[in-house]
């Protein structure tokens, strides 16, 4: 069973909404000043891929597109049990939107591991948050995809089928698909393992291969800013202002009266 996972490095300060991570003038995230971490959604991708490998045998290949700094997340993946890692890096990729990124990743997958069985992505990234890259890769590779997978029920190697549970807003879907397939897995599908001293040392010494646009046969017109139809009009930091009113119920004021005050207040704020 050959498993390919697509993971991403994101900037941590986005979580804290600190202003300096956002370059409003250039309408982009300022990765140079931000602390870079593994996309939190991708922790579960790594764990799930390694679990499948441990159960069914095979190999897990991790791919990420990004600057050289992104190598650290590939090493993290190796420390958790991923077998090989590729960094897809080229100055020509700069400014790629979800579409161009999906194109680059699909080219990389075709180049590195044409005989893949399962591709796993996170549902979305912390920074872009589009949730489109996974499904777009599947379209470009012309394979089925199942998003928001919350459990892999079974995999049948002989029949080349997979049965998964998809999390929906109002319940669950049980879906069977042919293999090869692309899955996007939700947070909490598993509990990611801790790394050991020995696996950390292996990952430090492991070789991460670096490929550029030419290596993966990417069409220069479909990558970077040129290949990105998305144009960001405005990028800004939103600050929430809270106005907390605490009110204790006294004997004279009943619960109903307090609810009444709350409703009136929400009405004045035009929330209801």
């Amino acid at each position, binding site marked *: 069973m050959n498993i390919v996972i697509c993971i991403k490095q994101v900037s941590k300060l986005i979580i804290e909404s600190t202003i300096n991570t956002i370059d409003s003038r250039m309408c982009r995230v300022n990765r140079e000043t931000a602390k870079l971490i593994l996309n939190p959604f991708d922790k579960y991708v790594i764990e799930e891929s390694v679990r499948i490998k441990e159960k069914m045998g095979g190999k897990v290949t991790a791919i990420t597109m990004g600057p050289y700094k992104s190598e650290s997340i590939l090493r993290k993946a190796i420390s958790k049990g991923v077998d090989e890692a590729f960094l897809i890096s080229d100055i020509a990729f700069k400014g790629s939107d979800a579409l161009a990124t999906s194109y680059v990743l699909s080219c990389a997958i075709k180049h590195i591991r044409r005989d893949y069985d399962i591709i796993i992505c996170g549902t979305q990234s912390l920074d872009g948050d589009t949730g489109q890259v996974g499904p777009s890769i599947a379209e470009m590779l012309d394979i089925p995809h199942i998003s928001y997978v919350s459990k892999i029920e079974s995999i049948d190697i002989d029949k080349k089928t997979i049965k998964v549970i998809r999390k929906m807003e109002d319940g669950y879907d049980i879906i069977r698909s042919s293999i090869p397939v692309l899955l996007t897995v939700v947070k909490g599908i598993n509990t990611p*393992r*801790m*790394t*050991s*001293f*020995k696996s*950390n*040392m292996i990952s*430090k010494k492991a070789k991460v291969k670096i490929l550029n646009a030419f290596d993966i046969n990417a069409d220069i017109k479909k990558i970077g800013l040129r290949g990105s139809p998305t144009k960001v009009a405005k990028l800004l930091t939103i600050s929430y202002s809270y106005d907390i009113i605490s009110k204790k119920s006294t004997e004279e004021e009943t619960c109903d009266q307090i609810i009444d005050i709350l409703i009136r207040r929400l009405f004045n704020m035009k929330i209801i």
Partner: protein
Amino acid sequence: MDYMLSDEEKTLIATAKNIAIEKMKLERKYYDENEEFPWKIIKEFAKSNLCGVYVPKKYGGLSKGIMGLVLVLEELCKVDSGAALPLAATILGTLPIILAGTEKQKTKYLFDIASGNNLAAFGLTEVNAGSDITGIATTAVKSGDYYIINGRKRFITNGGEAQVYTIFAKTNPKKGARGISCFILEKGMIGFSFGKKEVKMGIRASSTRELIFSNCKVHKDNLIGKEGQGLIIAQATLDNSRPGVAAQALGIATGALEETVKYAKKRIQFGQTIASFSAIQHMLADMATEIEAARALLYSLARTIDSGKQKRVSKESAMAKLFCSEVAMKVTVNAVQIFGGYGYSRECPIEKMMRDAKITTIYEGTSQIQRNEIALNLIKQSF
């Protein structure tokens, strides 16, 4: 400071830190309040290869020496020294085997300890013996191929939870200090049982219990070293294990300082953060300086022991243990002071750190005993 740590040492720290943050931090309050033995955390240590950090590679460990042990314990104790203690106590219990055991004993016991399958414990202290080892009343009488052990051990860390026990008993009471021998005992041996569990001020996640031997029959193969070598083995063990207590103390102090700086930057009084007041700044500066001095002493000691270039390290080992534990106590008391009411409240982790720090000035030789050891060696060495 960098301390010229190797890549492997940095990885050890990162591995320990990961467990401390991801697994120990959330649970420390639970284990402290419920005084429950942290088996779940120990399993994480085992999976991460940390249980064998000091055990030689030949027996399934990492061979990272005292330095490796110190780095791991410091990192874990920054978050929770109570849950980290079973690991430190296991090393204390294992040291007699590593230092003086036969090949057969090492092969039999070390693999399971390095993999984390078994914990170990060290049994020396008794009701009327501790700092004064000659006061032990436990006896081991030879009878054919066996020794019959009778007596009680008090305040034994990992008691009841560990599988392997290295205990000291008098094989020849007439010979005094030279009549003491060291034995390996296993949980489940006939005549070996456990007494009451201590209810403690700090390190509450750990188990401290009494060991009771009543005609406990032990094969002579379980004797460590030769008959009468107990005192030498105990001394060598403590020389190597005191850096572990020092590391525990250093970890607690560092953890407390980190929390305190964070708090001082957040807490607003008189319209500004308390970190902006020089009264607080000077306290923080003293805490940081003393911690760094303690670290420098401890790391130098660890490197010296690992190099094997200095035969006896009793004096230096006692110095590191004394200094680090006293610093830990001072730093945590001041941390509680800076936290004010919040520091005294059990909501914050600081009061726990202060309670945990206290034991480091007591076990494996009180601060007073360390001073005796230092002075004794100082006087002996001068001519």
